[in-house]
């Protein structure tokens, strides 16, 4: 039996809200960058005090190309017992971001948890967050070029895209090895062969 989160057969995942307006216990709201901050601030005032996660998505060929997704949880701070909390309410906010101007307002001041999440989205999708206190890469090295989770980013990176795959089978403890240790490894191979009474291999390293 398909779960409630399974998209209908034949549906393309271009716009999640078109495929499934709501998911189980999570409301889905789609807004534009202009309304994003007001929407999120309003939700926080309504009790959605916890930002579970923020992430990005890339839909090449769609306009707007990117989505920034916020997952919010209503912790019901007034509830005294577990029963009163029940199933906490969830909201998922999707914000389309155009490729030409990938900028959305930061909510790091509303939820400190958004700080690193927004840095991650910036790092991997190249979406900038206006008003973020410290917007720099968080996962890739600081001097990295490109944004790897974009669908048009080459899987092996731009530099190695056409290079052959390294071959583990060519690496040997007693034959090849790196130059520094190769000399020793070849000598070791000779000694092992001599101890076994086999023909001593030629030293082709030098």
């Amino acid at each position, binding site marked *: 039996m398909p779960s409630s989160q399974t998209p209908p057969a034949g549906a393309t995942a271009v716009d999640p809200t078109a495929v499934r307006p709501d998911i189980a216990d999570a409301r889905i709201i789609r807004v534009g960058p202009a309304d994003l901050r007001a929407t999120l601030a309003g939700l926080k005032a309504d009790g959605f005090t916890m930002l579970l996660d923020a992430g990005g998505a890339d839909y090449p060929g769609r306009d707007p190309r990117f989505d920034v997704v916020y997952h919010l949880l209503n912790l019901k701070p007034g509830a005294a017992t577990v029963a009163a909390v029940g199933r906490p309410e969830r909201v998922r906010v999707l914000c389309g971001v155009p490729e030409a101007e990938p900028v959305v307002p930061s909510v790091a001041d509303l939820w400190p948890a958004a700080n690193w999440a927004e840095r991650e989205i910036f790092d991997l999708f190249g979406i900038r967050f206006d008003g973020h206190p410290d917007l720099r890469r968080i996962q890739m090295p600081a001097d990295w070029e490109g944004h790897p989770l974009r669908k048009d980013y080459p899987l092996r990176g731009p530099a190695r895209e056409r290079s052959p795959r390294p071959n*583990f089978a060519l*690496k040997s403890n007693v034959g090849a090895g790196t130059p520094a*240790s190769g000399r020793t490894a070849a000598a*070791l191979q000779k000694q092992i062969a001599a101890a076994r009474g086999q023909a001593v291999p030629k030293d082709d390293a030098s």
Partner: protein
Amino acid sequence: MAVAELPGGQFLLAKLDDVARWAQSSSVWPLTMGLACCAIEMMTATAPEYDLARFGSEVFRASPRQADLMIVSGRVAQKMAPVVKRLYDQMADPKWVISMGACASSGGVFDNYAIVQGVDQVVPVDVYVPGCPPTPDGLLYAVNLIQQQIRQGGRGGILARA
């Protein structure tokens, strides 16, 4: 020449080379560095069932200044590569490197932008250990190969022969 007096007034004569290499090969101290899941097998190699201490290598040092052996146990991310290189540079000579597992040796299944395709692009590797992950026996054998190299005056030994 090294001369030792045994109980009963007996002597042992040995070449200083051999004594030094015997001591050195019996105390190959690894660096405390676990990069990924191979590190779990590396820890298992120190546990009683496999007992790396039999070969004198159970003393994992938290400082590269005190370590002789770097066990690259896992995939090396592009961001981690400079750190690995720096730790290797900080280790005092003589020093050895074991590339543990498929990822450290060739990138393994991670043929992508984020992973260095073989740690031998960053530091010189003495012994490769195949496997995903290698068994603790495999790592023990790699340590044994390093010891063998040292006893035969291999690269890096304090009294290395040419």
